[in-house]
């Protein structure tokens, strides 16, 4: 059975973020800088506009971001 939350998630997946966003290639180019800013508590979204929207809209880049952030955060501890 499809729950209301499932439907909301599906709508988000189908329509995407609806904001200006970088491409997958630009995302990969900027990902290390974005993650280092996040790890050091800086405002990554203000510094690199368009990244957050792309990470919301692109499942693969979203996963790559989560992986890099998790790995770097563990190593920074």
């Amino acid at each position, binding site marked *: 059975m499809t729950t*209301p939350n499932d*439907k909301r998630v599906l709508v988000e997946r189908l329509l995407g973020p609806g904001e*200006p*966003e970088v491409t997958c290639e630009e995302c990969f180019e900027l990902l*290390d*800088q974005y993650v*280092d800013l996040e790890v050091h508590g800086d405002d990554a979204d203000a*510094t690199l506009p368009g990244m957050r929207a792309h990470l919301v809209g692109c*499942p693969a880049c979203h996963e790559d971001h989560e992986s890099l952030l998790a790995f*770097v955060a563990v190593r920074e501890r």
Partner: protein
Amino acid sequence: MPTQAPRRYGRPRMRVVTDESQTWLRELRDPATREEAATRLHALLLRAARFEVSRRRSSDVDDLATQAADDALVAILAKLDTFQGRSRFTTWAYKFVLLEAAVKARRRAWQGHEVTIDDEAWTRMAAQGRSADDSLATGELLAAIAEAVPRCLTDHQRHVLTALALDGVPVDVLAERLDTTRGALYKTLHDARRKLRAELEEEGLLQ
């Protein structure tokens, strides 16, 4: 270009290459130290690759992680001159190996699985959306999207949207099957989403 994001990349202070990064660059460029530095870097990459492959509960962890570390090291050495010091060198290097490991793990997970496009899914979704009684607005929106897909999108856009957004096929897997790139597929997805948003705005269902 699917996007209009302003290009304001990086703060000046992030461009300062750290001592650690300088050391990596110097040792990887110097013929006298290159091999030893590459061996140390490979060990770091292998650890990152194992982390990623294990996190994805993929089979053949050692095999996939080693392949990812090997391929990433080649890519990193080839792109060494493109490192601009906006991050630590190791963070820059890890993104290559984590990407390699993730792509290999996703492709391994889908090995032997056929990617089929079920166009009837949109008809079923339209009916399901309309029958919702606990989330009228979302159900109505979902039904409107499902009805707009066959009307507004090209066959290619519809297939890509169905595979990526509805069926959850990883973009790397679809790119491999269609002999194209992740970026090209995401642009198709982006264009399809933009058309759907415009249609829904016209119908007054989206602001």
